[in-house]
């Protein structure tokens, strides 16, 4: 189980302290799927980066299965059981897709397994295995390879930062199936940062982040009413609070 307690992240901008995450607390149960959504610039991707250790928390704690991860580096968090898919994955000159998948799996994978991983994210596998993960691949292709790197290994918790971004509709449907399958197997927890209704509808629980803080969190049924009343979530929240 992931427990996030009073997580805060502040940076200095032009000599002023700016709070990008304010006192965020939530948890994710084993096998649970949590979708984090909310307006652009609200702090969702920053939260994902802090969870993975890509940027250091200024305050608060992150626990996974009883282990305090707050001060750990990203590689130590990976070893503790977190997988992370970047919203905009980097290119690697000279690194083949196959090599990247092997690194992600922590072992030499049989070619058949690599092909299967790529096939599951909508890539015609054999064409890609020996290709370099460089600028010759489109953003959408790199994004799908990025997701495959997280799927290459079982994790306690997988974090996907806007997995739908830059992906065509056909591939998106395949991704949704992947997430559904992981969710059904119940042996990995999922945090998906998304604006996509189809992904939000898969969630066990939904967390809305706005203006650097948790605006609302609840189970799917109650949060779907909040989110899809035809108004942006934050407006909806405001009106509710005014009621």
């Amino acid at each position, binding site marked *: 189980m992931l427990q996030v307690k009073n997580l805060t992240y502040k940076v200095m901008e032009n000599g002023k302290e700016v709070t990008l995450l304010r006192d965020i607390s939530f948890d994710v149960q084993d096998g649970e799927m949590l979708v984090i959504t909310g307006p652009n610039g609200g702090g969702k991707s920053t939260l994902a980066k802090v969870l993975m250790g890509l940027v250091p928390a200024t305050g608060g704690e992150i626990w996974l299965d009883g282990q305090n991860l707050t001060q750990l580096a990203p*590689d130590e968090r990976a070893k503790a059981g977190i997988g992370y898919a970047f919203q905009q994955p980097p290119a690697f000159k*000279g690194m083949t897709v196959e090599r990247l998948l092997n690194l*992600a799996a922590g072992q030499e994978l049989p070619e058949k397994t690599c092909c299967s991983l790529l096939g599951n994210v909508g890539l015609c596998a054999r064409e890609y295995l020996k290709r370099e993960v460089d600028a010759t691949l489109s953003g959408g292709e790199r994004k799908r390879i990025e997701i495959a790197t997280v799927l290459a290994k079982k994790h306690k918790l997988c974090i996907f930062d806007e997995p739908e971004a830059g992906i065509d509709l056909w591939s998106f449907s395949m991704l949704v199936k992947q997430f559904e399958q992981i969710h059904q197997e119940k042996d990995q927890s999922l945090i998906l940062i998304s604006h996509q209704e189809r992904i939000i509808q898969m969630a066990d629980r939904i967390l809305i982040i706005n203006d650097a803080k948790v605006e609302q969190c609840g189970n799917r049924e109650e949060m779907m009413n909040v989110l899809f009343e035809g108004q942006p979530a934050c407006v909806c929240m405001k009106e509710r609070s005014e009621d």
Partner: protein
Amino acid sequence: MEWNKEELDAITRQVLAQIDTDNFGKEGAYNLRYNGTSVCHGDTEHIKIKRKTDRQGIDVYISKEAQREQVHIPVVLAVPGMTDVVYNDFYIEEGADITIVAGCGIHNAGCDNARHDGIHAFHVGKNANVRYEEKHYGEGEGTGEKILNPVTEIELEEGAVFTLDTAQIRGVDSTVRKTKVTMKDNARLYVTERLMTHDAQTAVSDIDVEMNGAGTNAQIISRSVAKGTSRQNFHPRAIGNAACHAHIQCDSIIMEQAQVASIPEIDARHVDAAIIHEAAIGRINDEQIMKLRTLGLSEEEAENVIIENFLQ
């Protein structure tokens, strides 16, 4: 002195393992040059190696019947203070298909410099297909420098294809590489140069490609990593004297206090010459490091993986 290739000493084996990963001629013709002397060689039905009589070196004759065959001609230098200059000429007949594995490794355990200048000339017949692999490597605890100065001259007849794959792995204190290629109609050239320098090493690489025939096509890719206080200087030059295509790409990773200068030059002398160059020098991207760290690699491991793959 004639050696049996099964009876090499430990240092020679160790150096050969670095520069000839096919384990020194399991197949094909071969010639091993050791401390300035050709110590063992073998021919095949289609490949004949002859020692020069007027100067140091060999002439390698590859007949048109040679199809997907190999020649291994490694050089090992293990004597401090020695300067070994060798001239190797390759005569490749029309239509032959050959892989030539060369390379030089220096083991220097002394305080005097050890230097090898390998001057190679390739005369490639019409429609022949040549792959030339050359690895350079230095080792040894001595304070003497390991110096390698290769000169490679390639003449491509009509329709010939030449793949030049060079790698300087590590341990070479100083290198000046000179490569000159002339191309006739429809000849194709693929150059991949990979180079790593560290500590206070220096490397200079000049590549001149003259596309003299219509329909010629040249691709030059150079990838390098400079660490420590090392210095690298690249000057690939493509000259289009006819309707031709050429692409030069130089990418370098710079680290610590190293210096890299990359000066691609394109020179079109025909209205249908299409020549492109790209050059980039930069440090390792932080996002690449971060991505690999999310896969469980430490910062140092991530850096090594990025460099290793970049130079693949």
